[in-house]
């Protein structure tokens, strides 16, 4: 019986891989539940891939057939409605856990040396997920799908000189249409999930396992010392039960409130003649949409929206304090918590019709606060007194 595993072992480092990445990966013993959101992101990604595979078997990426094929899935395909709701709500679930995962990294300084590259791969992953969500949102070919794709692709028109050609190239036509649907489908089911997201996840985990997990105290731990425990069984057991909890919340939405993760307007086929009065992106894009709208010029808004994400990549350099965890930095702690609240308010602003002056003002103020956080970070070490070295754990 041992011959087959041995044959394999002589030709492929299966045991080493498992030891390195699961059974003997040393993890800090003091991780709190916020550290489980990385594993949850992987869980939701797996759910998206499996449900997406089944949807792709019945879906028709053709402007004449797409909308009806979604209803075919909802009405005629056995358990089709379940697969579709799992996929639609799963996208929200994935973004929800990713936001908490990123927020945890910001709060506990997980982007600091030696985890800068890990952080950047994560931001590339976030961009890839946005592209994945955006291309997927066109596929139901509803009214909101159509107009969101029209508005977002038109943003590329602000690129100097080649803007107009770029928009046409992206759409495959002068307006969003059948060609756009076909290419978005190809990107959504082949390129992004397999090559881009899959590849980046492998890079993200590989980099993580080189530098090790940060922890709530933000201190370096000896990989062979008493403060680390093997990932298996300790964190596998912990992440598993926490995943059960997450699944309960997820299933509650899937089975009882699925339409709360979907836009009503998208249950109507595209009306090519009239832009919907109030265009709203999915909730997970709302904060960045609010930034886009808060800048008076279209090119300025598009640049600000990109900058809002890219500036997060600069955190390893903007945050100059030697102390990682906000737990030991009273000023960064308060600022970061305020940043999170402000981010939620930005999301609320993004969901409001932009017509009122109050909403416009709120958008400008929250956008300013968003960027102000990154401007203040480099100045903090000048006056902030980090709590004296919790039990002398850092120099």
């Amino acid at each position, binding site marked *: 019986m041992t011959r087959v595993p041995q044959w394999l072992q002589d030709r492929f480092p299966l045991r080493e891989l498992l030891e390195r990445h699961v059974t003997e990966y040393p993890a800090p013993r003091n991780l*709190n539940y916020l550290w489980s959101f990385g594993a949850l992101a992987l869980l939701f990604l797996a759910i998206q891939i499996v449900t997406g595979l089944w949807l792709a078997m019945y879906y028709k990426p053709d402007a004449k057939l797409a909308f009806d094929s979604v209803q075919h899935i909802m009405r005629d395909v056995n358990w089709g409605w379940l697969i579709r709701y799992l996929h639609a709500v799963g996208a929200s679930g994935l973004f929800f856990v990713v936001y908490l995962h990123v927020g945890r990294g910001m709060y506990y300084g997980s982007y600091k040396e030696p985890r800068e590259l890990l952080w950047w791969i994560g931001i590339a992953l976030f961009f890839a997920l946005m592209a994945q969500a955006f291309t997927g949102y066109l596929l139901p070919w509803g009214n909101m799908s159509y107009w969101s794709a029209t508005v977002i692709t038109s943003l590329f028109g602000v690129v100097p000189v080649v803007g107009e050609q770029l928009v046409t190239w992206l759409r495959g036509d002068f307006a969003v249409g059948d060609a756009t649907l076909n290419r978005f489908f190809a990107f959504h089911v082949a390129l992004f999930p397999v090559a881009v997201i899959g590849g980046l996840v492998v890079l993200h985990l590989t980099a993580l396992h080189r530098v090790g997990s940060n922890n709530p105290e933000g201190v370096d731990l000896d990989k062979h010392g008493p403060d680390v425990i093997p990932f298996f069984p300790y964190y596998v057991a912990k992440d598993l039960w926490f995943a059960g909890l997450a699944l309960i919340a997820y299933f509650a939405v899937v089975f009882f409130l699925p339409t709360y993760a979907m836009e009503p307007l998208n249950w109507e086929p595209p009306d090519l003649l009239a832009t919907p009065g109030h265009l709203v992106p999915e909730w997970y894009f709302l904060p960045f949409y609010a930034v886009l709208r808060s800048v008076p010029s279209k090119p300025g808004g598009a640049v600000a929206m990109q900058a809002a994400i890219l500036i997060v990549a600069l955190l390893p350099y903007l945050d100059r304090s030697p102390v990682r965890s906000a737990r030991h930095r009273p000023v960064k702690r308060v600022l970061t918590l305020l940043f999170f609240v402000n981010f939620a308010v930005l999301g609320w602003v993004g969901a409001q019709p932009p017509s009122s002056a109050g909403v416009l003002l709120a958008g400008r103020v929250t956008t300013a606060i968003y960027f102000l956080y990154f401007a203040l970070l480099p100045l903090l070490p000048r006056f902030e007194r980090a709590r004296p070295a919790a039990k002398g*754990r850092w120099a």
Partner: protein
Amino acid sequence: MKVLRALFLAGCLYAVAAGGAAAVDLSPDSIGAGRKLFESDCSNCHAMKYLGYAAPLPPEAAMKAFGDVPPDLSLMAAARGRGTSGAEYVYRLLTSYDDTPRKNSVFPDLSMPEPIPRDDPKLREKAGQAAAFLYQAAFPEFRTRRTVGTYVIAYTALLTALLYLLYRSVWKGISHSLSGKARGG
């Protein structure tokens, strides 16, 4: 973590309250009556392509008669609001016709003539039934979904409880805090 937990609970409560406040009776009787109403009245102008009710009028004729093409109603209850609020929208629309010059005080300038006469003593009942039928048309899976969902969540809760016990037993005797011997960083 405490704040997150409180936010999550508040979100759940709100969702349950919003989802449960159904003004439209979704019982099979009400939906059945709504279907009859659709077949006898609504289907004179409206199609429901996903339920096999074809449009009775060519679009040009409808345009001539009403100045508008009567929309397909298959997904109307989904397209006018999340959860049951789309069905409630239909109910409000059907019960808000009046004598004002714009015909309907809640949804002014509708092309659709009064579908249920406002002096019909059963106006509210009929409107509710029509709305219930439109809800069923848009979400044909809703009853199965709720039943299956209850079992799925009960099963997942049981599984989670077992996994929690497993987690507690695996971590028995393992401290969650650092020993104090960590290096500086």
